């Protein structure tokens, strides 16, 4: 059986990163016309573990160094290389090629932002809105807690607006990765689609945010395959066409 990682251009070089399964197979590119699939041999009845999920992602990230990648869902297998070519590439080229080209020259960057709850509560308690009488009973205490929860969420919303507002100017697209539902939730879980050309500027903007907001925790991850943006149909980065030479590294 062959395991499929992602769709790439037919001329995309094979990654050095080994595939998933035991023993890990070598990843190669199976091609048909303009597109190819990164595959490796796996045993029948491959059980998929957490390690395999991580291996799958590592292969995609490695592939991304040499051009656009459409990630396939974890666990996609075909009975043979021929079947992969026929059923996935030949059958899907009309759909897959434009989606792949739409990701040319762009990568996904993820940003998680968390605040220190105690610090945020202290900031809220210091504002006029945070002033209150000492609650006399349980009902009043809960009511106060709810009021504080609302203020805390508004406080985080403000932080999130500022961060995303600034970074969205440097991104082609952006999307929330997780719903923010309540006062136990973080400030931000976000994905940005960024042109490779703008990666240094984006890095710089993150560095500035980190310096300005030392009490926030930033987790900054990437470049990743643009998994949150695979439904883009328009070519996002046609401006980047001159920087992407098709056969070289994207060079970050």
């Amino acid at each position, binding site marked *: 059986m062959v395991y499929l990682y992602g769709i790439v251009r037919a001329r995309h070089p094979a990654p050095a990163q080994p595939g998933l399964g035991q023993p890990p197979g070598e990843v190669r590119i199976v091609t048909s016309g303009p597109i190819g699939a990164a595959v490796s041999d796996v045993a029948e*009845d*491959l059980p*998929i573990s*957490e390690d395999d*999920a*991580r291996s*799958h*992602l*590592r292969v995609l990230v490695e592939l991304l*160094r040499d051009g656009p990648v459409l*990630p*396939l*869902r*974890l*666990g*996609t297998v*075909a009975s043979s290389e021929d079947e992969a070519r026929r*059923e*996935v590439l030949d059958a899907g080229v009309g759909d897959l090629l434009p989606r792949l080209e739409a990701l040319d020259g762009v990568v996904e960057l993820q940003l998680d932002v968390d605040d220190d709850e105690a610090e945020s*509560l*202290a900031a809220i*308690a*210091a504002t006029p809105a*945070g002033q*209150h009488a*000492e609650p006399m009973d*349980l009902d009043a205490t*809960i*009511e*106060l*807690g*709810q009021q*504080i*929860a*609302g203020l805390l969420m508004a406080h985080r*919303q403000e932080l999130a*607006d500022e961060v*995303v*507002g600034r970074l969205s100017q440097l991104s082609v*697209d*952006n*999307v*929330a*990765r997780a*719903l*923010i*539902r*309540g006062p*136990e939730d973080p400030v931000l879980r976000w994905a940005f689609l960024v042109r490779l050309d703008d990666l240094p500027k984006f890095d*710089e903007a*993150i560095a500035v945010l980190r310096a300005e907001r030392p009490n926030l925790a930033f*987790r*900054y*991850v*990437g470049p*990743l395959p643009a*998994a*949150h943006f*695979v*439904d883009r149909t328009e070519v996002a980065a046609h401006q980047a066409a001159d920087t992407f030479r098709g056969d070289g590294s994207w060079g970050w």
Partner: protein
Amino acid sequence: MTVAVPSANRAPHPSGLADVLDLVLDKGIVIDAYVRLSLVGIEILTLDARVVIASVDTYLRFAEAVNRLDIQPQKQPEGLPGLIGDLQEGGAKHKTRGALSGVKETAKEAVSSLRGGDEDEDESSRGDGGRSRSSEHRSRRPAPAGRRSSRREEG
């Protein structure tokens, strides 16, 4: 092989399993002919299905935190802490049952008010081909102004 250049404190991969799965399982493209096959072997791994809005504990913790912060100095006259503690506890016990049954309602109201601000349900405007298996989770927008509109439970 190219070597990863560490830059700007960027991590090359997400560290948490939930983030890894979000990328490769939840957001990966499903090849139509392979839906049956692509489910092979995946028993692991349910994404974090936490449904936390806020609990009474959360509210009590917040209230306690802000009280500690700004009312602490005038809290209790010295010398009687034990007695006052007992009295408050006793009083609280009486209230507890009624208060806690009321709490659910209050919490629900709070929740619906939190989730009621769905000012821009713009997911329908995305106009994609419906390929994303999780488009119902998505809230794509250019700026986070609509972040609040995400505050609703799935489904």
